[in-house]
C-alpha cells in the first residue's frame, strides 16, 4: 500500500517534443458549465507549454479544471495561469498538478490560480499540487481566493468613477493577464452582465 515513490501519470493528451511550444487558451463565459481536463507531457528536451484560462460565473454553473503538467525531459518550461470570478451559486474546482520526473533536471514550472468570490452562495475549491523528484528545478505555485479590494474601489470612487464602473474595471484588470488577444470586448461585456 501507499505510493511514496515516483509513478509516471498516464500518458497525456498532448505530447510536446523538443523545441516545440504548446499554447492553450480557455475562456468560460457566464452560463457555461464546463469540465476542462488537460494533461500535457513535456517529452522532448527544452519543450514548452503555456496554459491560460479564465472563467466567469453568475448563476449555478459548475466549472472544473483538472490540469496535469508532466515534465519528463530536462530543460522544459511550463506556465499556467488560471483566473476567474465566481458569482451566483457557482461551484468552481481547480485541481492542478505539476509532476517533475527524476530525469527532468533544469525544469522551470510555474502555476498560478487566482479566484474572486462575489457572493455567499458561490464556492471555490483549489488544489494546486507539486510533485517533484528532481533537484535542479525552479518550481512554484500560487493560489488565492479573495474578494475585490475595497481600497481600490474607494480610490476610483473618490475620483468620480461610479461604483458599477469601478467594479467592472477592477474585474477587468484582475482578468487581464489571461484574456486572449482580441477577445477583450467580449469579456468586458460578460463582466458587465455579472
Amino acid at each position, binding site marked *: 500500500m501507499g*505510493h*511514496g515513490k515516483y509513478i509516471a501519470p498516464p500518458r497525456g493528451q498532448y505530447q510536446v517534443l523538443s523545441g516545440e511550444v504548446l499554447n492553450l487558451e480557455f475562456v468560460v463565459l457566464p452560463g457555461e458549465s464546463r469540465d476542462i481536463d488537460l494533461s500535457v507531457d513535456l517529452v522532448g528536451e527544452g519543450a514548452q507549454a503555456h496554459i491560460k484560462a479564465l472563467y466567469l460565473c453568475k448563476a449555478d454553473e459548475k466549472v472544473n479544471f483538472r490540469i496535469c503538467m508532466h515534465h519528463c525531459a530536462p530543460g522544459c518550461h511550463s506556465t499556467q495561469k488560471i483566473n476567474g470570478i465566481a458569482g451566483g451559486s457557482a461551484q468552481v474546482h481547480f485541481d492542478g498538478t505539476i509532476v517533475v520526473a527524476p530525469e527532468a533536471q533544469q525544469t522551470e514550472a510555474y502555476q498560478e490560480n487566482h479566484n474572486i468570490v462575489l457572493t455567499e452562495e458561490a464556492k471555490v475549491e483549489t488544489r*494546486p499540487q507539486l510533485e517533484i523528484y528532481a533537484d535542479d528545478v525552479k518550481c512554484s505555485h*500560487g493560489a*488565492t481566493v479573495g474578494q475585490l479590494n475595497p481600497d481600490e474601489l474607494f480610490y476610483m470612487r473618490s475620483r468620480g468613477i461610479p461604483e458599477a464602473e469601478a467594479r467592472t474595471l477592477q474585474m477587468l484588470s484582475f482578468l487581464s493577464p489571461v484574456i486572449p488577444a482580441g477577445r477583450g470586448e467580449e469579456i468586458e461585456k460578460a463582466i458587465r452582465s455579472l
Partner: protein
Amino acid sequence: MSESNKIIQEFTSAEYKEGFVTDVEQEFIPKGLNEDIIRLISRRKEEPAWLLEFRLDAFRKWQAMPQPDWAHLDMPEIDFQDIIYYAAPKKDKDRPKEIDPKLAETFDKLGIPLREREALAGVVAVDAVFDSVSVTTTFRKTLAEKGIIFCSFSEAVKEHPDLVRQYLASVVPASDNFFAALNSAVFSDGSFCYIPKGVRCPMELSSYFRINARGTGQFERTLIVADEGSYVSYMEGCTAPMRDERQLHAAVVEIVVEKDADVKYSTVQNWYPGDADGKGGILNLVTKRGICKGSGSHLSWTQVETGSAITWKYPSTILKGDFSASEFYSVAVTNNHQQADTGTKMIHLGRGTRSRIVSKGISAGVSQNSYRGLVRMGRNALNARNYSQCDSLLIGSRCGAHTFPVIHSQCPSATVEHEATTSKISEDQLFYCNQRGIGPEDAVGLIVNGYAREVLSRLPMEFAVEAQKLLQVSLEGSVG
C-alpha cells in the same frame, strides 16, 4: 562564527546520539490487541468504568476502520497483533516514591532535568514518559500554588476525573481517524495540563517521551486546557533507541483554548529515523488538534521534525471563536530513506479569524518530503484571512519534495493566499561560502539554518539551540 563552527564540528561527527537502550527491569503485558488486552491495560492503571467503556467503544470503531493510504508514503504493513501495548519500568518496592536511579540517569543523559534544584534559571517543568508510564512530573507544587494542574494523564484521571471527562475526545473524537481510534483504545500515559482563568503560567511546561522496550508501541495522550485569559507555552520532545525493527508511535494531542487564552505548542521530534539503508526507525502517526473555542483566543504550533522513518502528522486548528487566531510554523527534514507527510489544517468558522502557515521542507538522500494542508473558510467566516507559505529545499538528485494544499472557500469576504516554491541550494551560495573557506558540509548547514530561520526563531530558547544542532546532524553526509 567560531561558536557555530564548534556546534557544526561537534555534530557533523555525531550520529543519532540518543540511540542507547536503558537496561531496566520492565513489566510487559502479552503481545496482541483485543478487548481483554484493553481491559488489562485499564485494570493495570486502575481506571474508572467510564474510561474503560470509552476505550472499548473506540476499539470497536477502530476494528471497522480501514487503514488510510492517501498519504504520499510507502507505508509498510503494520501487524497490530505483533505489538506490546503496555510496558512499564518496575517500581522498587522499598522506595516507591523515588525515581529509579537508572531512569534518572537515562533522562540525565538525554539532558532532561528531573531534579528541580538542578534546573536552569529559565525553569521548565517536565513530565517524563518512559514507554507506557509517566516517570515523574517536576515543579507540581510550584504550579499548584497558581492553581495550574500539570501531571501525568493517569494521575489526572484519578485526581481530576470531572475535568478529564469533560474535555477528553472533545477535540479529537475517538472515531476521528484510524490511528486516533487506535490510540483512544490503548493509550497509556501522557500529560494533562489545566491553566485556570486569567493565570499566566510562570514557566515552560514540557513533556518528554522516551521509547525504550523492544517490540512495544507508544500511545500517549496529551490534553491541554487553557481557561479564559490564560497563557501557557508547552514543549514536547522525544527520542528512541536504535533498533532494526520498526516501532509504532501513535499519539493524540488535544488542546482547548477558551476566550482570550493563548497557547503556544512546540515540538522537536527526534525519534530514531532508521539507519542509512532505511532499516528500522519509528513510525510516527500522530493526530494533533486544537480548538480556539472562545473569541480572541490564540493557538500557535511550532514543530521541528527531524526524526522518524515515517511521519504522518497534521497539527490542526479549528477557529471557532470570533477573531481567534492560529499559526503553524514547521521545519521538516528528511534524509536517507525517511518519509514525511506533514502539514496542517486551518478550519475557519468564526468571524474575523486569522491563520498563518509557514512550512519549510528539506529533503536529502533518497527521502520523500510532502506538505499537505487544508484551509477551509466556512460560510460565517466573515473577513477571515489566511496566508500560507510552503517552501521546499532539495539536496541531492534522488529525493522528492511535494506540496498538496487544498483551499476551500465558502465566504465572499474571506481571503486565502497560498504560495509554494521548490528549489535547491544554489551553486552561487555554495561558491560564496567555499570561497570564504567554509567547507561544503558546513556551508549547507549554514544555508539550511538561514532557510529555516523564520521557524526556528519561534521556538522557545531551550529548544532553539537543540533544533539548530539537530538540523546539522540530520543532514550530515548529504553533500559531497
